[in-house]
Each structure stands twice: as structure tokens, then as C-alpha cells.
């Protein structure tokens, strides 16, 4: 097991290097000169000498690979550079923006877990009956709507029409409801289907037949089906965590949520490269770590895989 863990953890290093290198190349492919951008965002009309001195200040006069190495080494030490726009350390910006996004992602995950499990179970119980079809149809319908549209509809209905919730901002605890619901819509239909299908599949397994033969009540049987079905959904749930965090961009904009998605959009509009780079690395790390954790958890849960890993 330990050997497996070491192997898995070590294998993330080349992956991270590859992803960051790719991101670095892509950003450097842009035709605009970052030194000039750094001057222009401060309303300075760039002259040749100023651009040159800014290039030196930002270390842009070094060869490509040296810059990449510097960037990686500095990032590992937590020095992510300074924003071109407001001159604040990028790390500080991230520290401000990450907690709201984590809150939002957490609330969304709770909604996804609760509704996908309950609706998934309901659907499997009423397999192919009208209740199943109605629920699935409704969820599918909601998921098919783009999130900016559904977000505005929800905002209009619950805030303006019913006057129950605030439209946007982060001023009260209820503020998180609408953005979290909006964000969960995109994921809900996938998980409802996943759980429903797994439940239905397991229903026809022999161990359920035996349980029925033993005369266990309906509730216990459903519970048994559920615990066996949830395992394969775990991987998907695990991987949806980084996807959730990366996918908050639009929802954060609509609901004026001061998270990392908005930070990234603003950085892109301003060509604030240090912030964009930091965002990319953060997301890459997040995806790789979540992937790693999910792999490890799956191996630990499943006795067959555990044996293989040894």
C-alpha cells in the first residue's frame, strides 16, 4: 500500500510540470507585451525606455526557460508575484478570494449530494413510472438551461417576485442560497442519473435477491442497494469538487460573489498575467490532488483493488 501511495504521489510531479509548462507557453504565445500592459493599466503611456525598464523589473528580459524555472521555483516558495493592476501580492488576492469560493462550492456540494441521492433513490424506486420520468425530465430541463439564465430566473423569482432572498452580494447568510442552487443545477442531472442507474443495476444483483428471500423489509433492501451504488458515484463526486470551484466564474459574476472566478475574469480582462498564471496553477493542483485522493479512497474502499495495489 505504501509503495502504491508513493508511486501515485510521485507521478503527480511530472504531470504538474507538464500542465504548468503548457500554461506558461500558452500565456507567452500572446502577442501583447506584458511589460507594456503593466504600464498601461496604470495609465502610463508607454515609451520605449519605460517598456525596457519594466521588462527588466518583471524579469521578462530573461530567456523563456529561465523565466519558467524562476516562476516555478518562486511559486513553490509561495511567491506568486504581484498583480500588474493593483500591485498587491497575488497570494494575498487569492487568500481573499478563495474562502468565498470554498463556501459556495461547499454549499453547492451539499445541495448536489442531498438532492441527487434523494431524487436518484426516488427515481429508482419508481423506475420507468411517471414519477421517475417527471423528476428526470424536470431535472434534465433545469440542467439544460445555461447557468446565467437560470440564475437570473431564480433571482427574479425568489428575490424580486417573492421577496424572500437578497438578489446578490454576500451581505447575509441567505445570500449563498441562490448562487449555490444555480451552480448545483449543472451537476444535478448527471448525479441523479448515475445514482438511479446504479441503483437499478444493483436491484437485479444476486445479493438483493437473497435479501428478499431472507424476508428483509423494503427499507433495509433499499439501503443495501444504496450503499452498494454509492461507491461508483464517489469518483465522480470527488472529481466534481475541482470542477465546481473552476466553474463558479459565471455564477460569481451574476451574484456578485467575491470569489476566485471573478478574480480570474477580471484578471483576464486586464491581462493581469501573474494572477492568471496563479489561477491556472491553483486549478491544476486542485484537479491533480482531488484525482489523487479519489484514487486512493477508491483503492482503500474496494478490497479487490486493495489487494492489487499490494
Amino acid at each position, binding site marked *: 500500500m505504501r509503495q502504491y501511495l508513493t508511486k501515485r504521489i510521485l507521478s503527480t510531479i511530472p504531470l504538474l510540470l507538464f500542465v504548468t509548462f503548457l500554461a506558461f507557453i500558452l500565456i507567452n504565445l500572446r*502577442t*501583447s507585451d506584458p511589460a*507594456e*500592459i503593466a504600464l*498601461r493599466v*496604470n*495609465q*502610463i*503611456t*508607454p515609451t520605449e525606455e*519605460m517598456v525596457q525598464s519594466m521588462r527588466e523589473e518583471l524579469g521578462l528580459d530573461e530567456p523563456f526557460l529561465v523565466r519558467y524555472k524562476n516562476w516555478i521555483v518562486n511559486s513553490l516558495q509561495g511567491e506568486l508575484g504581484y498583480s500588474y*493592476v*493593483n*500591485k498587491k501580492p497575488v497570494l494575498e488576492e487569492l487568500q*481573499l*478570494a478563495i474562502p468565498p469560493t470554498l463556501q459556495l462550492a461547499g454549499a453547492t456540494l451539499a445541495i448536489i449530494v442531498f438532492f441527487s441521492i434523494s431524487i436518484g433513490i426516488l427515481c429508482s424506486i419508481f423506475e420507468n413510472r*411517471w414519477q421517475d*420520468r*417527471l423528476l428526470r*425530465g*424536470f431535472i434534465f*430541463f433545469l440542467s439544460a438551461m445555461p447557468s*446565467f439564465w437560470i440564475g*437570473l430566473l431564480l*433571482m*427574479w*423569482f425568489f*428575490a*424580486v*417576485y*417573492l*421577496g*424572500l432572498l*437578497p*438578489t*446578490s*452580494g*454576500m*451581505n447575509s447568510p441567505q445570500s449563498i442560497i441562490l448562487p449555490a442552487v444555480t451552480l448545483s443545477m449543472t451537476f444535478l442531472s448527471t448525479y441523479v442519473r448515475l445514482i438511479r442507474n446504479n441503483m437499478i443495476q444493483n436491484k437485479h444483483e444476486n445479493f438483493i435477491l437473497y435479501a428478499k428471500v431472507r424476508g428483509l423489509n423494503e427499507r433495509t433492501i433499499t439501503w443495501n442497494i444504496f450503499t452498494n451504488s454509492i461507491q461508483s458515484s464517489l469518483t465522480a463526486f470527488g472529481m466534481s469538487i475541482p470542477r465546481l470551484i473552476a466553474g463558479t466564474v459565471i455564477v460569481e*459574476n*451574476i*451574484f*456578485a460573489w*467575491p470569489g476566485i472566478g*471573478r*478574480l480570474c475574469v477580471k484578471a*483576464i*480582462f*486586464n*491581462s493581469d498575467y501573474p494572477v492568471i498564471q496563479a489561477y491556472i496553477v491553483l486549478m491544476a493542483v486542485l484537479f491533480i490532488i482531488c484525482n489523487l485522493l479519489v484514487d486512493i479512497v477508491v483503492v482503500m474502499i474496494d478490497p479487490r483493488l486493495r489487494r492489487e495495489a499490494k
Partner: protein
Amino acid sequence: MKTKILIGLIALLLILTGCGQRASDSNSSAGKDELVFASTKDIRDINPHLTSGELAAQNMVFESLVVNTPEGVQPKLAKSWDISEDGLTYTFHLREDVVFSDGAPFNADAVKQNIDAVVSNYEKNAWLNLVQVIDQTEVIDEYTFALTLKNPYYPTLEELGLTRPFRMISPQNFIDGTTANGVSGYAGTGPYTLAEHKDNQYALFTANESYWGDKPSIKNIHWQVMPDHQTILLGLQNGEVDLIFGADGDMLDANAFTALQEQGQYITEVSPPSGSRSILLNSNREFTKDRLVREALQYAINKQTIASGILNDTEQIADTLMSKSTPYANIDLEIRSYDAQKAEELLDQAGWVKADDGYRYKDGKKLSLMLSYNSDNAQEKTIGESMQSDLKAIGVELTILGEEKQAYFDRQKSGDFDLQYSLSWGLPYDPQTYVSTWRVPSHGDYQAQAGLEKKEWLDQTIGEVLVEQDEAARAEKYKQIFTYVHEEAVYLPLTYSVVKAIYSERLKGVGFNVSQYEIPFENMYFE
């Protein structure tokens, strides 16, 4: 089965909407002392000597020696001033009853420190001409301050009154004797002070207890950041937002503005014309270097469609680059109204022949032009499409190229465009600051004019007009400048921008400052 699902869905929707009762009418204005202003932007760093913050926020906290009003420059922190015969020395007599909100005294010494701080941070403030011509600052006595220029500069007072950079911040907020690397606080002399600021969320301004002038009626201004326009509108309908205010489609697109106007529940107001929105016709490019082509384009565009159809009559049609209410721009120029027939004649005259595909050709080349715009601005795209169809009608192909901000700037600098938008900053920057930028090669205006025969003369005349002391001579020079660019047809005037305000009925006293970037919160009150 499908019908069953449909019926089920409809039933669900009916239930959901049926149980709805509007609950948001309970907001009462009695004793309301907070105004919520929604903006797509955070106030950022409002250091008055830098350009990184929101102008409207800087204007609430910081004041200048003088103020620009529709009646011209008026006293503010200076009671009066004298200008020397040679136009080089301005002596200001300061108010004696002013203190900064941190208790520091406002006097000639504070003024000197502020102006010195602006001038010493030359790189960041050189965009303003006045910064380039200031020679010396001097404390004469406690409440008398003198400013000496290198050469006469007629818009000196106007530029001192701008929202930035010549606004006064407490010297106690300086870091190492300067404001160039940030400030330790935001103590000004203005009607409001910044009480709280949460990055990208909100800023809270409270009335300045020690304000020397009339204290504002509304105690608190809550500047709420809402990046999405639709959210702002819903916030207004929900009573969470009291005021939306802005120019250039920044805060409100024209459709939303008209929709709210028709609802009648809100008061909508439009300021007098401010900035100028025009299209640069690049005189330094293969096709548009021919004056006849540029002239033809002037007649080919239906501005009425743009003003009414796209901007919903929230902006006025522009016949000339500068509106007649702009200083020195009230001159008679030949107006080129929409006339497709005339446009076609001019193109015929220029040797462009219509082929079977409906487009014009000359020497085997198709008359194809490119309009470049900043893709952040949705309105500019729609305007471009309207122009595209107008030009197609006279046999000119127009491709519209939207790029992100920096790429757009790069194109501006290199002159690699046939058509590009040009926006002036509006009063009180117009006309002097606008024409002054025409001389800067990194501006699209410079590039578009680069092919003109008398470009050198133009730049020189602009340089002269800014230092011209004689009013009549100055007017004459402006006339020459505006007449020349008009005759050469390098600008295709579209509309004059206006500031739009939408607010709830209980809010009163909403007006406009001369600058389209300022919001006069201090005059507003609730009824």
C-alpha cells in the same frame, strides 16, 4: 408520455408562481439615511493622485482648489485667485475654515505638498498637460499659495479642478513624503469619508462630520459592487438598489434603460451631451487614404438608425466631432447628412466600380475595410453591424474585428486598422485634453491622422492653442483645427454621449456634474 410530462411541468410552474406575493413593498423611506448605489466596478485604491481608483468615489472624498461648473470654473478650497500678467503665476487665496477629516489643518503648506506629490510622480500623471507645465510651487503665507508655470497654459484652472490628480489629501496620509507608492489613509476635505471598504464587495461612505460646506443630507452611501448588469436591474426592482448612474453603456445598456423608462416606476434622467463618439477613418491606409473614400463613408452611415435603433435615443446624433456646447467648438461646418446616393457618387468619382457581386473594385482590388473594436463593449459591436449593412448598400465590405482590450490598444498604437472608435472624455476635458492626445503616437487618433498632408501643422497648432493667452486667437486656432479635421473627414461623428441615471421615486436631488465621471451624491436626499 410526453404530454404527461408537459402537463406536470406546467402544473408545477403554476403552483410555483401562484403562491407568489410581492413582499418587497415594505421598504419605507421614512428615516432612510443610506443610499445604495450599484456599480459594476469596485472603488479600488482611491488615492487621489493616482488613476487606479473610481473617479466618482475619489470625488466624494477629495476636493480641489477650484471646481468646474456649467458656469465655468468656480472657487472651492480657494476663495479667490489672481493670475499674473504673463499668465505664468497663479496665486490662490485659500479658505481658512477647512480641516482634513483626520484633523490635519488645510493650509498653503498642505496644498504645496499635494501638488508637489503629483508633479514628482511625473510618469503616472503626465497624461495631463498641466502636470507637464508646472514649474514651481510656493507657500506665500499660511493661506496663500502660488503656482508658477513654465509657459502660459490656458486650461490651468480647468485642469486643477478635475477629479484627479490635483485633489487634496491629508499630508499625514503620505508615505515617505509622497503619494506615489500608496497612502496610509484617505483623509480628504470632501463631503464624505470612506468608512469601510471590502475589496470587490462594497464600500461604505459616511458624511464628513467636519465638512466646511453644506453637510450632505444622506448620511451613508453604500457603494455595492455588482458585476452583472441584469443583477443591478433586479436589485433596483427589489428595492436593494436606489441609484444607477453612468455613461457609455457602462452601467446600463440602452434597452434596459428604455424598458425601465416605460415601466414608469422609476425616474430616469439623461444629462446634456458630454463626450463625443466617433469613428476614426485612417488616412494612412491603402483604401482610406483617399479623401473621397473617407468622405463617401461620411454620407453612407445612417446615424439615425444608430441613435434610435441601437441607442434608443439615449444619445444625440452628432453632425460634427464636437458638440456645439463644447468650448470653442461652436463653429459652422458643412454638415454631411445621411445620403447614400451621394456616397455612391463619391466612390464612382474615386474610381471604385461596382461589380456583379455588389461590391466595388479598383485595379482588381475589392473595397474592403476593417473596423476594430474592444470586445468588452457590446454596444460597439452592434453599431459596427449597423455600419456594415449601410456600407454594403454602397458596395463597401466592412469586416468587424473585436479583440480584447490589450490587442485593441496594440492595434491603436500600430495604426493597423481602417476604422476604429474614438471617444472623447467629455467636459471638462474637452476639447483641450482630447485634441492634446492627437499628438501622441500611441493614440488611434494620431495614427488615423498620420496620412494627412498637414499633420505636422496640425500637431503644431494644437501645441500652440494650449499656450495661447488671447481668447480670440485661441478660438481662431481651435476653429482651424476642427475645420481641418472636418474637411479631411478623418472623423466620422456618430453621437454625443450622455450620462444616464435611474433611481427610485423617493430619491430627490439627483443631478449631473460637468464631468460625466462624477456623481453628486452630496446634493441628493430622500423624501
